[in-house]
Structure formats: C-alpha cells, structure tokens
C-alpha cells in the first residue's frame, strides 16, 4: 500500500527502502511524466536515483533539486518525497507548473546521501556525513557539502576526519558528490540548482567559500526574497535571505558555489524550518507544513528561472 501515492503517508519519516519503493509507484502512476534514473551508486553500493520530470525533448533546460545531503536532516528528505508527489500531481492541473514542464525538465534527487541516511536510521540518528573510510583514521565519513571543487579546503571546512565538516582528501572524492557532478556536467543545460537542507530557516545563494559578492548577487537576492515572501504567506514562517558567507558563516567546498561557478546562475540552498524546539528532530507532524511552504518558494524560483532564460 505504501507504493500507492494515495495511501502513502507523506506526514511520516520513512526508510530508504520505503522511499525507493514509493518512487517506483510514482513512476508507475505517471509514466508519461516521471522516470527514475540511476546516477550511480554510493560508497556502500546503494543505488542513487534521481526522479526526472519531463514531457519530452533531449537535454532541455533543467532545474535540479536535491534533498538531504546531510543525512540527519530528515525533514529535507521527507520534503523531497512530498515535493516529488506535488510536481507529479500538479502537472496538468496547475497552469504554471504545466507550462514550465512544457519547456523545462526537473530533476529531483531525494536521497543525496543514501549511506548516511541508512546509518542515521539504523546506527546513529545524529549522523551527518557520508560513510567512506578515511585512511589512517578511525573516523568515517566526509561532509559532502564541503567536498565540491569550489574553494575546496578553504575556511569553514575541517582537515580532521573526525570532524562533522571534514572536507575529504580531494575535491569530489566522495562518490555521492561525483555522481552528481558527472550528471550535471554531462547534461550541460541546468539553469538552476537548488539544494535542500535543514534547519534554521534560511534561503542562501553563493558564495560560501568567500565573502565576496557573486556577480549576480543582487538578482539572486531579489529572487530569494520573492520566494521567501511566498513561503511565509502560508504559515508565517520567517526566513532570512543572503549569501552563505554573510548570513551563516564562511564555508568552503559547498555544492551551490560549484554549480554557480560552473555557470548555473540560479543556485540556491534552503535551510528548512525549525520550530525553535526540536532542531534535527522535527516531529513528523511538521513535515507537510514544512514541505507545503517550501513548495511555494521552490515554485516561485522555478517560475523565475523559466521566465528569465540565459
């Protein structure tokens, strides 16, 4: 019954197996819109699947969304599941999304760090990193959001394999990161790259590895503020908007800095809601409100990207 979108409980946290199985159900229910593509395997050999929402064409301009690269941020993956279902069910009924999908594709990587996600379910709920072995250290894992080739190894990343922000031995050393890098480069036509994290209610744009303004900072700021206005309209959740460096801290090797430097102008990262009481242990009854408000912001960004081709 979990395979059916109609009976699946979107207001609950699920295991990797359940989510992967549910993806098959989504594809089966929307065969002309959704495909599940394997982009590689994780360090521990788990498949990594991206859901592709497309109405046809080859390498159309596309929007990338990933969720849960930090495994313990469970509301991110849960939001990814809800969002996938929303895109599929809104196509054909929501005029704006339908028009977007007539000309663009959406790629959604719900589980960006499958090994870490499984580890957070089975062994350590607070696990954040990948699960790769670090030679010469008893500590495992690399922070996959410090592992991208963007100011790699600079401020805001740790050289210590035991740290939760360890950047890894080299850029893209983590297979989970490399799989995404390969897909993005081979595709070559992504216009937007959005990464979903939790928590602390922020919408960020490049850069993180430097506090210098990105070339398009003013435009990205404006797009971000518009998106957050939409988000806040649903439940009144307050967000801050700004560059990673200026509204959190300098952090090198982040995904959206790499994509921005690659030429993907509309690169953003979300930090989803926290009720101020639970941090990473956001109760499951907060999943749907979180995903619903995030969708309004996502849609606003996507519409802007559709209307501002470059």
């Amino acid at each position, binding site marked *: 019954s979990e395979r059916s979108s109609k009976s699946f409980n979107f207001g609950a946290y699920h295991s990797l197996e359940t989510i992967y199985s549910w993806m098959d159900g989504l594809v089966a229910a929307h065969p002309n819109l959704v495909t599940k593509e394997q982009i590689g395997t994780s360090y521990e050999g788990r498949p990594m699947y991206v859901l592709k929402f497309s109405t046809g064409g080859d390498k159309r301009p596309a929007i990338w969304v990933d969720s849960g690269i930090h495994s313990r941020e469970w509301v991110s993956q849960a939001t990814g599941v809800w969002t996938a279902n929303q895109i599929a069910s809104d196509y054909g009924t929501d005029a704006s999304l339908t028009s977007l999908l007539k000309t663009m594709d959406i790629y959604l990587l719900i589980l960006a760090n499958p090994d870490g996600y499984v580890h957070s379910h089975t062994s350590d*709920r607070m696990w954040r990193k990948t699960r790769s072995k670090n030679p010469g250290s008893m500590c495992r894992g690399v922070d996959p959001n410090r592992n991208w080739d963007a100011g790699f190894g600079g401020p805001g990343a740790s050289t210590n394999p035991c740290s939760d922000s360890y950047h890894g031995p080299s850029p893209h050393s983590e297979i989970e990161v490399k799989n995404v890098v390969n897909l993005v480069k081979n595709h070559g036509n992504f216009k937007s790259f959005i990464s979903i994290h939790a928590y602390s209610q922020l919408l960020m744009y490049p850069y993180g590895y430097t506090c210098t303004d990105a070339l398009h900072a003013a435009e990205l700021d404006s797009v971000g503020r518009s998106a957050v206005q939409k988000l806040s309209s649903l439940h009144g959740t307050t967000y801050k908007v700004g560059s990673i460096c200026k509204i959190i801290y300098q952090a090198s090797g982040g995904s959206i800095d790499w994509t921005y430097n690659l030429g993907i102008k509309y690169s953003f990262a979300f930090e989803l809601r926290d009720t101020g009481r639970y*941090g990473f242990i956001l109760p499951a009854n907060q999943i749907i409100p979180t995903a619903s408000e995030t969708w309004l912001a996502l849609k606003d960004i996507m519409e802007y990207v559709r209307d501002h081709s470059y």
Partner: protein
Amino acid sequence: EKVFIGDQVIRVNVESEEQILLLRALEQDTYWDLDFWLHPVNTEVPVDIRVPSSSLYAVKDYLRAHNIQFSVMISNLQELLDEEKAEMEENNM
C-alpha cells in the same frame, strides 16, 4: 545503535562578540564531545549545542562562569528519538 540518554540540546542566544569567541573556544575543545547543531556566528543567530550527558555539568558550568545565558531546548534527546522511532514503527505497521 548509538543512544543519547540524558543528552541535552541547549540553546544560547548570543549577546556579544566576546560570547561568540568563548563559544568558539568551546567548539574547538574536543574533550567534551560537543555537537554544534548551530555554530557561533553572530548575535542574530542562536547557537544550539548537543551536549552528551557526561559533559553536561562541565559545559553548563563553563557557560555560567562566563555569564552566558542559555536555555534547554531538548532535555533528554533519547526520549524524543524513542517517540520518533515508535511513530515510524506504528506507521510502518
């Protein structure tokens, strides 16, 4: 499976640059095995720290000694995780 019995998450609403520096010093100290959920950045952003039960007394003492105000956001992390797990199992059934 790792358990977090008695671990607390404490929230510090930072009031000054001096407090940020003191919290950063705490962050550098690996002895207490602290897990910073939100890092000390500026006075506008709170700092959330998961403190293992074994370090609770010492960490709270450190904060009080430096006149850093804090509140307990999660009083026993394992209780919340148990609730989360029970809810997931129920949902699976």
